[in-house]
């Protein structure tokens, strides 16, 4: 027997993911689960499932979960965290959920610097409802509700949530990551860990934005979808840190 260097995290349940082949929700779930387990907080973590493709992720995380109304996960997280400040609370939200219907909730959770962690999955499309335009859909990108390609004169330019949230004084840690190759997956995990550490240390609001893919609704093979992330999404949604606790410490 060799030395096991990688195995399925106990932060995940035994249940198989219901996602389409090649959907990066699975990678992101794994990273969150691994971090929670490695930080030793799995048994006191409470997660919040959104509305979207990951609506049923309460079945996949091996911790207590609440399923929230569309966009309201930050409010639900606030309710939980305020009455149970010693628990670790995270929400998991897609771009329709967080960047469209739930903009008020995410902005104000950041503004109050709620001591929660938000996992934001941006794949530039509404996956669950059948490939409609999202607020993050790229200019020219064809979806079922932007059949001629997103026209900025009609639908505006894609919203950059991390940049926007980073302008909020209460936001403590904001980072955008991608999972299109192993190197970036490893970087992404560090960001998730940092986000949860920010919460564990009581420093306030943390959010990690994942640039993600949707092979099925984009009409691409899983690998082509990741290439599209690299070639089209990342140039518009630059990766990196937008806000960190250290920076806040410096400014204090």
């Amino acid at each position, binding site marked *: 027997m060799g030395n096991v260097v990688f195995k399925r995290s106990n932060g995940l349940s035994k249940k198989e993911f219901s996602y389409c082949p090649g959907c990066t929700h699975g990678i992101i779930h794994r990273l969150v689960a691994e971090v929670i387990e490695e930080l030793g907080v799995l048994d006191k973590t409470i997660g919040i499932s959104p509305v979207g493709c990951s*609506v049923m992720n309460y079945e996949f995380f091996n911790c*207590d*979960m*609440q399923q929230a109304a569309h966009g*309201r996960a930050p409010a*639900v*997280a606030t*309710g939980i965290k305020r*009455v*149970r400040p010693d628990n670790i609370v995270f929400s998991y939200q897609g771009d329709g959920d967080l960047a469209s219907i739930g903009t008020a909730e995410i902005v104000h959770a950041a503004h109050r610097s709620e001591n929660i962690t938000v996992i934001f999955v941006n794949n530039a499309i509404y996956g669950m409802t059948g490939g409609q335009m999202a607020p993050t859909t790229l200019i020219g990108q064809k979806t079922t509700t932007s059949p001629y390609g997103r026209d900025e004169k009609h639908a505006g330019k894609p919203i950059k949530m991390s940049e926007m949230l980073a302008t909020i004084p209460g936001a403590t840690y904001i980072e955008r990551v991608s999972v299109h190759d192993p190197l970036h997956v490893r970087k992404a995990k560090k960001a998730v860990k940092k986000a949860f550490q920010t919460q564990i240390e009581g420093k306030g609001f943390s959010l990690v934005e994942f640039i993600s893919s949707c092979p099925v609704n984009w009409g691409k093979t899983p690998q082509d979808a990741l290439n599209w992330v690299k070639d089209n999404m990342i140039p518009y949604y630059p990766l990196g840190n937008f806000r960190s606790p250290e920076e806040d410490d410096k400014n204090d």
Partner: protein
Amino acid sequence: MAKVMMKGNEAMALAAIKGGCKAFFGYPITPQSELPEYLARHMHKHGGVFLQAESEVAAINMVYGASGAGARVLTSSSSPGIALKQEGISYIAGAELPAVIINVMRGGPGLGGIQPSQADYKQVTRGGGNGDYYVLAYAPENLQETVNVIKEAFDLADLYRNPVMIAVDGLIGQMMEPVDLDVEVPKRDLPEKDWATIGTYGKREPVNVNSLFLDPQDLENHSFKLAEKYKLMKKNEQRYEFVNMENAELVIVAYGTMARIVRSALEILKNEGINVGLLRPISIWPFPEKAFKEFPDTVKGILTCELSTGQMLDDVKICNNGKLPINFFGRTGGMVPEPEEIVKAVKDMIGGLK
């Protein structure tokens, strides 16, 4: 604590604290803002949480989260705000979470006005949001009854794992009245909250607070389970008061502030030798249908009085089932009638019956 003079909104806030409320999430709206203001000043002294949310929508979803995490939670608002909260209320009912919601009703529709109204009757008693559900709803008529029912509401919410709404009109929120906050109210035998998300701490399997049932068979099962619960509430939680029913030739059905005005009208009528009774629903859902079987034979008609254009009227019609003639008297938009107007409506009806 002895009797004190309190304003309705602050008495309701204190009653919630006395009822074991540990968290409040809300958003200001007239005429209930003194309630969150009171809790902002006092909640922390009782180890509770007060948070002003960014909207009613957020507030009710915070209630969902906190309740799902096992806390006794309150939110309050007024009619248009309650409309915004319906999304969350539906989720709370669907996920079978307890919550207490106070609705200090004002005139509508739309922005309406800020004066007292009972025009939310249907919003309150028909579930209000999407799906097959009801909220247990009480419409008390004075501060003592309001305070008592709020204290009890937290137990009832926990017992049935369902939202409980206290629907009072703006006058009850704004008026002063003597009240004793420490009147004993019935306690219920409450089960452990083993469904609450408080972390597994290695002691049990993870739990999930949820209202999603994608398999229609599962959702039907869930809906029938909820329906059984509502049947039980209908059986056990109907609450009403009869006033002056002996030999009454007419029964007025009225609740809340309207019932107070009717009481004065009954006195005037009595002095004129006209015997009229009052059925005062205290629970408006479940509606006190049992009461309609208890009317004496002398009753020849029913007059429904509301601060609306006629909403409870439908429930009165259902319970009456075509037996007796029914008239309606209502003022709305924040207009509150004088007892004399009801006296006239009674006389008109009696005249018509003869």
